C-alpha cells in the first residue's frame, strides 16, 4: 500500500537551531515526492519537490531510496518557519493522486 508517514506531530526548536522534519514513504516504484507548507492563516502551498533538487527558504530535502525517506532539513531555523509541514507522494508520474502524510507542526521559538 502507498503510504506517507510523518512520525512527529510537533517539533519545537529555538531560533538558529537545525531542523529536520522526518518523512518516510511506502511505495514499490519510483515516487515523486514533495513538501507542502501551511503558514498560519494561509493556504497550503508547495515548498519543494525532490525532482527539482532545489533549496527553498533554506530548506532542502534529499530522497533516500534505500531508507525510503525524504526528510526536510534546514540548518538554522527562523521564527517565520513556524508552520504545518506535509510530506506528499505521487505514486506514478503524471498521476492525479497525491498522498499526504499526517503533517508535522514546526514551532520555532525566539
Amino acid at each position, binding site marked *: 500500500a502507498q503510504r506517507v508517514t510523518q512520525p512527529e506531530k510537533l517539533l519545537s526548536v529555538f531560533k538558529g537551531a537545525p531542523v529536520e522534519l522526518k518523512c518516510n514513504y511506502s511505495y514499490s516504484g519510483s515516487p515523486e515526492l514533495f513538501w507542502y507548507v501551511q503558514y498560519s492563516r494561509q493556504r*497550503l*502551498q*508547495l515548498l519543494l519537490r525532490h525532482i527539482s533538487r532545489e533549496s527553498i527558504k533554506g530548506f532542502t530535502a534529499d530522497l533516500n531510496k534505500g531508507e525510503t525517506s525524504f526528510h526536510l532539513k534546514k540548518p538554522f531555523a527562523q521564527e517565520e518557519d513556524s508552520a504545518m509541514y506535509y510530506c506528499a507522494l505521487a505514486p506514478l508520474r*503524471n498521476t*492525479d493522486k497525491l498522498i499526504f502524510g499526517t503533517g508535522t507542526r514546526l514551532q520555532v521559538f525566539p
Partner: protein
Amino acid sequence: DTAVSQTPKYLVTQMGNDKSIKCEQNLGHDTMYWYKQDSKKFLKIMFSYNNKELIINETVPNRFSPKSPDKAHLNLHINSLELGDSAVYFCASSLAGAGTGELFFGEGSRLTVL
C-alpha cells in the same frame, strides 16, 4: 484575483441536512480536486476531475457527489450529513496533474455537523 476560491468558508448544519461547497479556479488549470482534512489534520483525496471528467473517486460514500459544470468549477454536494463528515474540505487545482506539477489549494471550508 484569488486563484482558487471556495465558498462558504464555514458551514454549521444539523445531521441529515444536505449542503454544498463551491470551488472555482481562475488559473486555467485542467485538473481539480477535493481533499478532506480530518480533526487529526490528515489530508486525504476524495475526488479528482480532469476537464470535467471524473478521474479519481477514493471510495467516498455516495452521499458525496462532485459536480463540474466546466473545468473552472468543481462543486461538492453532500446529502444526509453525518457527524463524521465534520472536517475541513479543501479544493485544489493543477495544470499538469499532481505527479509532475504543483497543486494550488483553496483556503478550505470548515464543515461542522451537529
